[in-house]
């Protein structure tokens, strides 16, 4: 289950405060505004404490003296205080609105930037839904935390303190009565906080799991329909949704409990104060105005105290969100590699030496220690201008090997040289500019056909390059037939193209920049025979002066290459021309014709190859 990783992250010493403190670098640029807003909020909040004092003055003054004219002044004061309070609260919101939207945006941009630069191995382990929820919901929670709980925890604390000072100064016995519930409330709140944190995190992760099921059932809709598995998918979904429901109910139980306590405890204290106050007024120890003001102040404090519960809950959720955010942000980026040695003028001009693999080994960073490496001491030389086909059984590591050249994965042993230069000593940018790749799964982005293809070229490439590349991939005709030609939008937000069409555009993208080194991973698999033949003919021209590594599954693709390397169980088992290997290597013959090791009849392939 994708949510499992959540459990072991809940180490006992995790603390909401420590998580939230990590937000500081983002808050720092807006700290002035934020502090001003908090100060304004405190002033506004304390103004509301002054209102009862004005009331007291009215009750004990003009009202007690039966002076109707005198109350006008009191009412005027109240009005002024009210207007000031309203404006200050609005001012506070105005102060932070833009800056906090900015904080959210900055954090999101940083996340995006970081994710784009994390190793591919990281992306292999993380579902994009989990990453997306960090970039949206979690950041929204953080923004809301900065806007409300963070400010109001401070504001309410100050207000409560000021209120109690007022209460105690008016009548210290009554004040003390009201003060008593603070201790149990604080204890309960912190108890609640720890419990709530666990459930909140659980709920967030379960939402992630649910998202994954939705995502998969949509992406795999043809399989679900093709096998009539709606029911079982719906059951799996229901199970997860019900699990989420019970977590949410557990959350609600906790919330209900804390709210009930937060309601009852202060209410009881106010009740006690009322009874005591009444007795004191009756005894003449207290003026009626003071009692009214006192109770009014106490009630004014009720909201700040009551809100502590949900403010803490929000903070807790924000802490979990922050934690989830930094879980990703703490991952280490790919290093950009040393700057290009342009500053060292005596570096000899690169010798045309092609691609060299020297003792290259690879194992996935998350593979168990006892698993054999995917690639084991690979030695291979692709001569300049040569095209080498890489052939191997299903899962022999061909795609992995191609990923090592542009350093999408890092070789764990040995080194790879491009024209004599170790790729780990090159700047990644430069390396990836030198090496162009067409992937097995052709991905198009939400952009026009032209933009998608020109991604593979240097800045400034335009129409002629585009036309040439589309021509090589035999994509020019279908592109011209699109509603807006090469300007047609494709990808998630545009026209959907067939697998073969996408593959041809991906191929065009790989060749558009006339790269020095070309890596093609089974580039023609989705093409129909006719198109494949045309593409091959055009590709041959491109390959003539490019050093290329081509993963091939079938003889027709192998024919593009000058030589073939056979990859078997993570090692290069043989290198030679197609015909040499066909004659000398049983595994190769089997892979290319299905004969030999397998018991198939294979007359078509056999004949086709023997004719040569």
């Amino acid at each position, binding site marked *: 289950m994708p949510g499992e990783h959540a459990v072991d992250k809940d180490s006992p010493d995790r603390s909401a405060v420590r998580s939230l403190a990590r937000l500081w670098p983002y808050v720092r640029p807006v700290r002035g505004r934020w502090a001003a807003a908090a100060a304004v909020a405190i002033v506004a909040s304390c103004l509301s404490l002054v209102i009862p004092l004005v009331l007291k003055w009215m009750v004990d003054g003009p*009202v007690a003296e039966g002076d109707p004219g005198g109350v006008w002044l009191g009412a005027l004061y109240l009005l002024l205080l009210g207007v000031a309070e309203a404006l200050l609260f609005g001012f506070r919101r105005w102060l932070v609105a833009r800056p906090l939207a900015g904080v959210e945006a900055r954090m999101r941009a940083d996340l995006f930037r970081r994710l784009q630069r994390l190793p591919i191995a990281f992306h292999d382990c993380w579902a994009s839904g989990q990453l997306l929820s960090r970039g949206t919901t979690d950041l929204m929670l953080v923004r809301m935390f900065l806007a409300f709980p963070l400010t109001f925890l401070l504001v309410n604390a100050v207000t409560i303190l000021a209120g109690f000072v007022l209460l105690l100064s008016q009548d210290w016995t009554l004040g003390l009565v009201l003060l008593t519930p603070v201790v149990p409330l604080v204890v309960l709140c912190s108890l609640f906080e720890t419990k709530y944190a666990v459930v909140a995190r659980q709920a967030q992760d379960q939402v992630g799991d649910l998202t994954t099921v939705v995502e998969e*059932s949509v992406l795999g809709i043809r399989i679900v*329909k*093709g096998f009539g598995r709606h029911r079982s998918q719906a059951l799996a979904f229901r199970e997860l949704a019900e699990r989420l429901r019970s977590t949410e109910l557990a959350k609600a139980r906790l919330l209900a409990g804390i709210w009930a306590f937060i*309601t009852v405890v202060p*209410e009881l204290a106010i009740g006690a104060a*009322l009874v005591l106050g009444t007795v004191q007024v009756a005894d003449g120890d207290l003026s009626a105005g003071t009692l*009214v003001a006192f109770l009014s102040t106490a009630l004014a404090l009720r909201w700040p105290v009551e809100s502590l519960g949900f403010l803490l809950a929000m903070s807790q959720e924000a802490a979990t969100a922050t934690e989830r955010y930094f879980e990703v942000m703490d991952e280490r980026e790919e290093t950009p590699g040393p700057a290009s040695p342009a500053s060292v003028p005596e570096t000899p001009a690169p010798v045309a030496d092609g691609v060299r693999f020297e003792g290259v080994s690879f194992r996935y960073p998350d593979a168990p220690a006892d698993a054999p490496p995917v690639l084991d001491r690979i030695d291979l030389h692709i001569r300049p201008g040569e095209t080498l086909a890489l052939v191997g059984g299903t899962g022999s590591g061909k795609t992995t090997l191609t990923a090592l050249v542009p350093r999408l994965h890092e070789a764990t042993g040995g080194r790879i040289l491009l024209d004599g230069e170790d790729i780990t000593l090159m700047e990644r940018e430069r390396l*990836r500019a030198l090496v162009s790749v067409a992937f097995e799964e052709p991905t198009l982005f939400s952009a026009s056909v032209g933009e998608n293809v020109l991604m593979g070229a240097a800045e400034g490439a335009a129409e002629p390059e585009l036309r040439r590349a589309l021509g090589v991939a035999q994509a020019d005709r279908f592109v011209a037939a699109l509603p807006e030609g090469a300007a047609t939008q494709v990808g998630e937000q545009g026209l959907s193209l067939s697998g073969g069409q996408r593959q041809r555009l991906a191929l065009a993208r790989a060749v558009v920049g006339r790269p020095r080194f070309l890596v093609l991973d089974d580039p023609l698999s989705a093409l129909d025979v006719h198109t494949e033949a045309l593409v091959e003919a055009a590709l041959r021209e491109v390959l003539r002066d490019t050093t290329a590594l081509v993963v091939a599954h079938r003889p027709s693709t192998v024919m593009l290459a000058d030589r073939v390397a056979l990859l078997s169980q993570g090692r290069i088992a043989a290198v030679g021309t197609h015909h040499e290997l066909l004659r000398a290597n049983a595994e190769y013959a089997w892979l290319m014709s299905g004969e030999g090791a397998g018991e*198939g009849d294979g007359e078509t392939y056999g004949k086709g190859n023997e004719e040569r």
Partner: protein
Amino acid sequence: MTDATTDPFDRDDLPVAPGATGSLLRSLLRAHRARVALAALVLLLQQAAVQAGPLLVAYAIDRGVPAFRRGDHGPVVAVAVGYLLCAAAAALLQYAFVRGAARINQDVLLDLRGRIFRHAQALSVDFHERYTSGRLISRSTTDVESLRELLSEGLQELIGVVLAFVYIAALLLWLDLGIGGVAVASFVPLYLLVRLYQRRAAVVFAERSTAIAGVIVKFAETMNGIRPVRAFRRERANDAVFAELNHRHERSNGDALLEMARYVVGSRLVANTAVAGMCLWGAYRVAGGTLALGVLAAAVLYMRRLYDPIDRLGMFLNSYQSAAASLAKIAGLLAQEPGVPEAVAPRELPAARPGIPGREVVFEGVRFAYRTGGEVLPRFDLSIPAGQTVAVVGSTGAGKSTLAKLLARFYDPTEGRVLLDGVDVRDLSTPELRRGVVMVTQEAFLFSGTVAENIAIGRPDATREEIEHAAKAIGAHDFIAGLPDGYDTDVRKRGGRISAGQRQLVAFARALLADPAVLILDEATSSLDVPGERAVQRAMDTVLAGRTAVVIAHRLSTVEIADRVLVMEDGRVIEDGAPSDLVTGEGRYADLHRAWRDSLVG
């Protein structure tokens, strides 16, 4: 594939019948009517308990004090007991309400999530191709989430606020008509403010939701295509595009917050002015001796409470706005008729003839056109006898896949019928149809879970032996056995990296396990190497021998095993015959075959 310019799909704006949003909400709540009523009653009582406090204050000042001075402690004791009871009742009812409301909310959400999910699964493949996965995902996640916010926080808040308004206004009117009158009068400007805010916020929220959708699409697309992003050094260009989208969202987000600030200032001003007015009136009357001091005290306490929740009302309006937008989108999705509805009165297939596991397929006067009008397959008739293997070839867009999808009932024909042993496929229940027809496509998607579970999708009740047997028959056993946990390897976890070719083998094992009478292979061998392709052919000759098969392939090697070849062009079958006959002729197939031969020898 469809006319892109005026399609409502492109604007993420499916047509909704007027009132559909409201009726969706009603239908969600209908099942819980009794519990909603009970929750409302609990809240009613809770508010009564909460609002009793100031009345007790009035009673204590006006009756308790004089009585106590006379030596009568009764009223003070009554106040103490009353306060205690009210506090306890308020807390208990609060507890009951929060839990009860949460239960209703969660049941509604469960229901809604299920409805979206089931409906999305029921909608045709055609719909999915146009609606795109991203939108469906955001319907069932972010849109449901905003409804969750409305239900769990907003609605509770709204009921509480309305109840408090009604209670307090009534109490104030009862205490003193003048004070109550001011309170009631203040509702008019407050109402206008709320309406104004709602109108303005709707615009801002619409912009914000469009902006965040843009951010999400860019984000998801980049993460899903991270390899090409890296290989083609798109990072900086993406950063720039993302920054722009993100900035647009930042602006609209800020606008939304500012709109809220405006509302808060306005409503607070009204509230505080009203409080000052009420105090003036009350104090004036007490000073004049026409009102008891205790009543004034109670009124003042009530006034504070009256306007306390107006900020929260704003928050409610916030969540209401975004939930309304989300619900409208969900309603639009749910209003989509499944293009391929389940049979109302399902029929069974006739019993299989002994010795012939395959079934006869007949296309009877079938025509297919997209709803937007583009005709893909003009009217045609085609009959495939039971047990025959038919290869369909032709260039991209010739209509091969459409033919296959009609047979698999991913689409329904615009005219005519597709018959399986004489039964219209539209009359078959889903399980019966899938026992009859299974389609393996080019995209071999794996679900999270183990390899064994992925194969078992073909037949969920299959034993481990049967699963392994299927994998062996297709030549997938060796690589699966070599995975860290063999058949129990989680395909999404460490060590679970499975290549495209291996995924296609798993997809085949799935189909073998399903053991259908009719098997459709739509480019299903594109990523296989030659031995893999051989294994598939072998399996079709042995395990699947006698099944009717429709094979769409680019590779003529696959075609060679067919009993019959159909060459398609522009939606029409232009050649039909045994491969050996066609290859000797001068038609399209002979051309293709020559091209293929040439590609083999280079």
